[in-house]
């Protein structure tokens, strides 16, 4: 048998054949294309359609973007330069400062909001990223006062007095908090108010100490106004939102119903009606003779609006905490304030962060609505002074594209952060 075989088979391979390369269609780019773009008839049709759509978009967009004029003084010059295709981006260079700072902010003081904007990142970093040194939080605490001084100007004593009030309040609070939370809170508020009242005389008497040129809030405009409204209102609405959420969970029926009615009312009406209230109605409800300026009324209304939404997010966080945490806190003998401060809120807030960030993004976008009540924010600047000027009447795409881009950059960055945080916080397995 073996003989015949050795005779009939001339060659026996004793090494393995190296694996043949996969067929063309199953390797490299082709495989990727097959699997990701042309898997099946339906998929191929989709791909082709997507390509057509993409080509159509790009064939319009690219010549517009790259054939644009950047250095013309007005739309007529621009139309001569671009000859039909391309965009008049010179409106952006020409009105750059107006788009960012509005029409009335003094141009020699542009560095102030810019600096405040840069410092915002430093201030907010330790809040966003846990692994940064905790000492940076001191700067975060100081930031509101620095930013106020930089943006609004005036003597540095005003923010200093405000800061002093908080410091005094904090010390009174920490001194009394062992006895009674309510007493400590009341004492802190009284202490802060007294400090502000006393400090008011000091800062009025010495109005020139380290004074920057004062800018009334009416003169804020452009993208800066959106940023101010967004940052201020979100920061202010957080504590209010926490209180509202706790109030809604409270066992005291009257407090609970006050919070429920407030939250549901605010969530039930569009922001624009609240802005109408700020603009055309609120003045009638203020004491005769007082006159807030519009930006302050708008800040109040947007803050109320945001706090209702944040309250709902935090309520979700509170509800998501296992019942055992509440019971454990009770069994340790902690009272309500202690249990909330030490056990419940730290956990509930941590769960709520992605939701809060979503509310913050939504709110930041909604700050554009102030343009409808004749404030010159970014959208208001475009709709008002820029488009109505003889120079730039008729330039739409460039301006709206720019506005959309600015908001996209900010909001996309925040939402990416939120997703990153969600992944980080997600320790469970599915």
């Amino acid at each position, binding site marked *: 048998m073996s003989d015949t075989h050795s005779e009939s088979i001339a060659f026996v391979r004793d090494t393995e054949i190296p694996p043949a390369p996969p067929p063309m269609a199953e390797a490299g780019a082709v495989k990727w294309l097959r699997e990701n773009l042309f898997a099946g008839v339906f998929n191929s049709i989709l791909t082709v359609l997507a390509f057509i759509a993409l080509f159509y978009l790009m064939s319009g967009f690219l010549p517009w973007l790259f054939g644009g004029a950047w250095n013309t003084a007005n739309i007529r010059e621009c139309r001569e330069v671009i000859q039909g295709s391309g965009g008049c981006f010179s409106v952006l260079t020409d009105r750059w400062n107006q788009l960012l700072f509005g029409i009335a902010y003094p141009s020699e003081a542009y560095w102030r909001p810019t600096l405040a904007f840069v410092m915002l990142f430093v201030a907010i970093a330790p809040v966003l990223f846990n692994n940064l040194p905790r000492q940076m939080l001191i700067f975060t605490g100081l930031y509101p006062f620095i930013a106020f001084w930089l943006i609004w100007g005036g003597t540095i004593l005003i923010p200093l007095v405000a800061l002093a009030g908080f410091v005094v309040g904090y010390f009174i609070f920490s001194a009394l908090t062992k006895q009674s939370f309510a007493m400590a809170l009341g004492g802190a508020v009284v202490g802060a108010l007294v400090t502000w009242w006393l400090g008011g005389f000091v800062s009025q008497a010495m109005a020139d100490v380290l004074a920057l040129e004062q800018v009334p809030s009416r003169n804020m405009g452009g993208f800066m106004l959106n940023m101010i409204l967004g940052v201020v209102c979100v920061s202010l609405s957080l504590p209010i939102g926490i209180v509202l959420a706790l109030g809604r969970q409270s066992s005291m029926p009257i*407090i609970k119903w*006050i919070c429920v009615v407030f939250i549901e009312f605010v969530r039930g009406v569009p922001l624009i009606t609240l802005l*109408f209230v700020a603009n055309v109605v609120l003045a*009638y409800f203020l004491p005769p003779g007082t006159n807030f300026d519009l930006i302050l009324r708008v800040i109040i209304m947007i803050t109320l609006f945001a706090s209702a939404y944040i309250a709902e997010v935090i309520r979700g966080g509170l509800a998501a905490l296992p019942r055992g945490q509440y019971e454990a806190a009770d069994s340790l003998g902690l009272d309500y304030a202690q249990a909330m401060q030490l056990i419940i809120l730290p956990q509930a807030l941590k769960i709520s962060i992605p939701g809060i960030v979503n509310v913050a993004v939504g709110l930041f976008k909604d700050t554009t609505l102030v343009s409808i009540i004749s404030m010159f924010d970014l*959208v208001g600047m475009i709709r008002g002074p820029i488009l109505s000027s003889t120079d730039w009447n008729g330039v739409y795409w460039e301006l709206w594209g720019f506005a959309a881009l600015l908001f996209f950059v900010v909001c996309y960055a925040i939402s990416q952060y939120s997703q990153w945080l969600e992944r980080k916080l997600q320790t469970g397995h599915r």
Partner: protein
Amino acid sequence: MTTMTDPPRQSFRLSMLLNDTRYRSYTFQFIALVVLAGIVAVLANNLVVNLAAAGLNISYEFLANPAGYDINQTLIPYTSQSSNLQAAWVGILNTLLVAFLGCLFATILGVIAGVLRLSKNWLVAKLMSLYVEAFRNVPVLIWILIINTIVVTMPSPRAYRGDAATHEMLFGVIAYTNRGVYIPAPTFGPGSMIVVATFIASIIGIFAYRRYAKNLLFNTGKLLPTLWPSIALFFVPTLLMYFIMGMPIGADIPALTGFNFQGGIQIQRPLIALWLALSIYTGAFIAENVRAGILAINKGQTEAAASLGLRPGRIMNLVVLPQALRVIIPPLISNYLNITKNSSLAIAVGYADITATLGGITLNQTGRAIECVLLLMLFYLIISLLISFFMNIYNRSVSLKER
């Protein structure tokens, strides 16, 4: 054990209001109530004093006065001599119209985009995430203004006019202009009711047939075809009746006469711009919800369904979607609410919703700011509460029934 006695009964002391947890909550609530009442009283007092100082009063009589202005798109009869109240009704119906259309279209768009974003097709998935991110991260007001600008660049009716017309009507019956889209309107001649009745009857017939087929399948395992009979039932009886009755239903085709297209059904530009903007914007949010809902379904469910021999389409319909709906519905409700509330931005494109009529022109012309804004908020509040009420009922019906 037996030494346990009741604590000595304490008589009520005033300090217990602050220190005793049994009574403290009453103190807090009392304080809260007093503070609330105080704030309300101060605000009301300010209002009275301010109004008296300005020589104004609160009165709703203006609602009965003639509005004096015209509205371009009305669902109910309205002329400039109608009352302000009628104008408000026009606005309410317009708000509901755009909200309804927006919800419908946004849902369709959102489901498609959400499913396609999970598609294995790389290009399509990326395009869809581009769409979702671009619309989620830019304010809706900017999108409304951009889409309005796009709609305005559509051909004007002048482009359809004369021998040198640069545009033709779509299929000869639909005109799309920057003033709106004009589509043929059905005209009902004598006997048309019979045709309509036949049509409705055949729709009912389709449902009955499908139900029968399903029961048959479940009871006997016999599978009847459903698709072709349904289509046949849909068309054949109606068409038959249509020709028997001598073609009583015609179409009123819009035609360019004078400045504008006349005849047919007109969907005005502001409605189109607002509708598109709201639904594309909200569609991006719904897409995210749909995606999250589908991803929330455990992979084991899909695998279990596959191992039962279900086809991918059936897996989606019978296993994944019913479960995903529970995750999708709650955020969907708030998206619907958002569309309704965002429709108040109609003012930016000139759509006559309630904010533009009652809260806009009526407010301007009568100067009754407080009354108008109060009514406006009341309306939105009622709508919001109604939507969440009905959606919650539905939500409860699809929620997990634990046994």
